[in-house]
């Protein structure tokens, strides 16, 4: 149906202007219509914290927040984020203070090679802010199943999330958690 030149990485179609908020900062970018959010973050914006594992929604390494919800950035076009708030692992810490999830991942040793870790922490931080997800271990495991860890650090990841919950709830009560991530 299409000739081979259609496979080129660079779009022959015109660039699109994308206005969105990244880690709390408003920005305007020119992106190709077929540019994937994950690739724009890593290659155009040089934010390497968000990882590419499978590129097909199967591993969760690319998880970011879009308007506060965890999503796979490998299956989202950058242009689809027009007007949205995107948070990556680089935006998780606030005012030099680690997010409770980052702190507890450190303390619980919730990683081995570390490749899945940013995705795990993005899912975990969205989970803590989502009242629809149960607080028990089984519910947390189920809600986290979209993040694969090839090293098998699952036990410590679960422990880290449940430990972060205590700190998160305390901050949420003080009204400083759930920062400017837009709707959700």
């Amino acid at each position, binding site marked *: 149906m299409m000739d081979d030149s259609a496979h080129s990485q660079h779009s022959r179609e015109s660039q699109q202007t994308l206005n969105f908020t990244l880690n709390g900062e408003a920005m305007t970018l020119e992106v190709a219509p077929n540019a994937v959010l994950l690739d724009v973050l890593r290659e155009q914006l040089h934010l390497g914290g968000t990882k590419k594992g499978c590129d097909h929604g199967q591993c969760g390494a690319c998880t970011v927040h879009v308007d506060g919800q965890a*999503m796979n950035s*490998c299956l989202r076009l950058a242009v689809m984020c027009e007007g949205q708030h995107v948070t990556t692992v680089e935006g998780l810490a606030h005012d030099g203070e680690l997010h409770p999830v980052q702190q507890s991942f450190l303390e619980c040793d919730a990683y081995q090679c570390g490749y899945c870790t940013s995705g795990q922490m993005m899912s975990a931080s969205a989970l803590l802010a989502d009242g629809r997800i149960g607080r028990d271990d089984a519910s947390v495991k189920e809600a986290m199943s*979209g993040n694969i860890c090839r090293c098998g650090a699952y036990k410590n990841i679960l422990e880290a999330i449940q430990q972060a919950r205590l700190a998160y709830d305390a901050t949420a009560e003080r009204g400083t958690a759930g920062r400017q991530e837009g709707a959700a």
Partner: protein
Amino acid sequence: MRTFAYSRADSVERAAHATTPTAAFVAGGTTLLDLVKLDVMQPSELVDINALPLKQVEWLDDGRLKVGALVTNTDLAHHPAVKQHYPLLSEALLAGASTQLRNMATTAGNVMQRTRCPYFRDPSAACNKRHPGSGCDARDGLNRMHAVLGGSEACIAVHPSDMCVAMAALGATLTLEGPDGEREVPFGEFHRLPGDTPHIEHDLADGELITAITLDAPLAPAGSHYLKLRDRASYEFALASCAAQVALDGDSIGTARLALGGVATKPWRCAEAEAALAGQPATLESFERAAEIALADAEPREHNAFKIPLARQAIVRALREAARLAGTTQEEQA
């Protein structure tokens, strides 16, 4: 990834009128971008429909629940009306994919998702669905994951949706908007059997947009259960799944609704098994008989015969749990 033009639809009418045969709507993008990256889907143009006002869930006067095409799988699963009156749908949605994917995936996109058949996903393999007339590498290939119901010489690819299995059991109607205006299609008639034309998967014409899916009025008082059996406990497609809904009439079954996933080429309503259950005592024997009937026409290939007893077990277990819950509801109301 191949290139394509991109535009945003700003009204349902314009979205349904302006598209060309090689254009595709993009909603959550979780099926579409996956398959464009693999070069299995080759749209020349993507029409982003996310700005359309199709995100409501609302009760209609006749007691049915209308779900907008763009309601996400997460929002639908957690919607109070769905949790209370259609728990079967909520369970099925939450058994599908992962938190991240459900946050992106939409109701209409889920209905339109493509098969996970590895030969369909591999452009170098023969696949009548992807490339009509090229043959089917699954028939005599690695077909452990393939369908035992509804297959043909041309195709045995499974319809992978969990949500659709619940909808097949609950009963629903799709609302479509096309160049010729609006029309409605019963859920059971939307997906096609592969037959000689496995590339024609559904009733949607070029340019037609799904705007809503309306669930039949809830069956009450009833119990229901969605059971999904798979290779790992979560974030995996079904080997066999069953959506069961039972309304009791005293100690016997008044109405039963039954559908299967993971074993068939489309979301598989088991009408004969349902009819056989009506009026029968809610016992293991009745459930086992229904399971026999539902799988009576199953045709296994080399590696997937195990799915037949697995699906029977899924039916028996789902019916047993649905009947137990129906009993509890009946007692509460007595």
